């Protein structure tokens, strides 16, 4: 019985992640529309897009690697999700989290984008190649503040387990956003880069690169990538809620906290234009990196 409950928890996690992911993205589209004085699409529009793409009747590909690229992407998203404990306590929704999962997540989170890069590389489309080189450069940019922020938390809590980090933030005053605000700032700026919303959307710039890496992916391949994107958005938000906002003890609390975090990149994205690649990387290597180093110094001094 217990095993059955655990296994159903895995599938429920994926279902919840997908649903929350596409609803949040629909919310973003509506919010963007309202800022631009428009009505905007219904909130379930992304689900319709995904169903439509999955029900396309032809799907061409230019070789095995293009076929595998979206599969890599969705595998990495689901794997990332599976190693993040969704709720703080109880054994429902804990999935595969283990001691040291934070180190593992650092590795697995870029796996999907690397797979995508391989897939896009085989299409032979020059826009894809430019988009991939920009995207990978941007990863090099935002990984540094992200790792610095995580290191600050790991040093502060003396653990690499997400579970213990969550358990240590037992009251609102103990949340890492208040205990170590510098790490939060560095982490959230890295998160802006991870979401690929403006100002850091230069890999996918539609007006400039014809949507970049996915420009040769249509039909079911694009549907798979959009599904993967919805799941990965939820996984990233859950990770940041666990790290900085003390996790959540039920799904409603998780939704509220995740939405609050999600509003930061969305609102910044609505009001900002796009950085060029070298500007984005210089930005990531300058301000968030300095803040991240300061947060580590702060943690060492505090202890």
């Amino acid at each position, binding site marked *: 019985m217990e095993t059955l409950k655990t296994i159903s928890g895995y599938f429920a996690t994926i279902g919840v992640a997908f649903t929350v992911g596409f609803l949040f993205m629909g919310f973003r589209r509506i919010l963007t529309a309202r800022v631009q004085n428009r009505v905007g699409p219904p909130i379930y*529009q992304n689900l319709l*897009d995904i*169903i439509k793409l999955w029900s396309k009747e032809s799907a061409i590909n230019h070789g095995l690697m293009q076929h595998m690229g979206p599969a890599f992407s969705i595998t990495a998203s689901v794997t990332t999700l599976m190693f993040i404990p969704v709720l703080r306590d109880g054994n429902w929704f804990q999935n595969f989290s283990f001691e040291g999962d934070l180190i593992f997540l650092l590795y697995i989170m870029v796996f999907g984008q690397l797979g995508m890069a391989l897939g896009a590389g085989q299409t032979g489309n020059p826009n894809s190649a430019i988009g991939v080189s920009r995207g990978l450069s941007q990863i090099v940019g935002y990984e540094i503040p992200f790792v610095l922020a995580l290191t600050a938390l790991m040093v502060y809590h003396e653990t690499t387990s997400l579970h213990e980090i969550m358990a240590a933030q037992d009251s609102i005053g103990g949340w890492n956003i208040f205990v170590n605000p510098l790490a939060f700032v560095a982490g959230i700026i890295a998160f802006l880069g991870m979401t690929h919303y403006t100002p850091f959307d230069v890999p996918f710039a539609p*007006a400039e690169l014809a949507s970049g890496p996915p420009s040769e992916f*249509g039909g079911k391949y694009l549907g798979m990538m959009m599904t993967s994107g919805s799941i990965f958005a939820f996984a990233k938000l859950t990770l940041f809620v666990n790290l900085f906002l003390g996790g959540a003890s039920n799904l409603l609390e998780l939704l509220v906290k995740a939405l609050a975090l999600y509003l930061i990149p969305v609102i910044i994205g609505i009001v900002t234009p796009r950085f060029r690649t070298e500007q984005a990387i210089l930005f990531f290597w300058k301000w968030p990196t300095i803040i991240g180093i300061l947060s580590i110094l702060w943690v060492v001094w505090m202890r």
Partner: protein
Amino acid sequence: MEINDKDTLTIVEHIKNFARRHSLFVLAYGTGCGAIEIPPTMTSRYDAERFGIVGRATPRQADVLLITGYLSVKTLKRVIRTYEQMQDPKYVIGFGSCTINGGMYWDSYNTIKVLDQYMPVDVYINGCMPRPESVISGFIKLQQLIKAGKADGWKKYQENLDWYRANQKKVIKNWNMPDYNW
């Protein structure tokens, strides 16, 4: 569209059909002057996104090919290639008088007159130029056709490929298309 023995759509087909008609990714092929009507259609004033109509930058991701105006013989070649790269089911909207009968270019030596002879057009929007209101009403017409299962130009193109190819080769003298798979 599959219809079962009771002559009704299956529930899966209903869901697919609903998704297809409420999520139209548009590739606007801005050939003639009609391209100027696309920005107001998409932006704040007329807001086509509330019907699920979104612009896409590449033919692979698009469902609707919007041909906005006259086609010279040179651009017809590119349009054919673009159309064939789109994934089924795909729809074509002919925009403006020029795609219907040549419009003001009716006696031009290097534009095509009737677009329907070279690729299957599902919906025509007439006018010179059609206002954004009529563009949106054309999209609504396309949604109704998809709902009724009548927007099957892509099937006609596959079935009558020889006829379309012959027509295309009649006007395009230097037919040297590169190899590509659809």
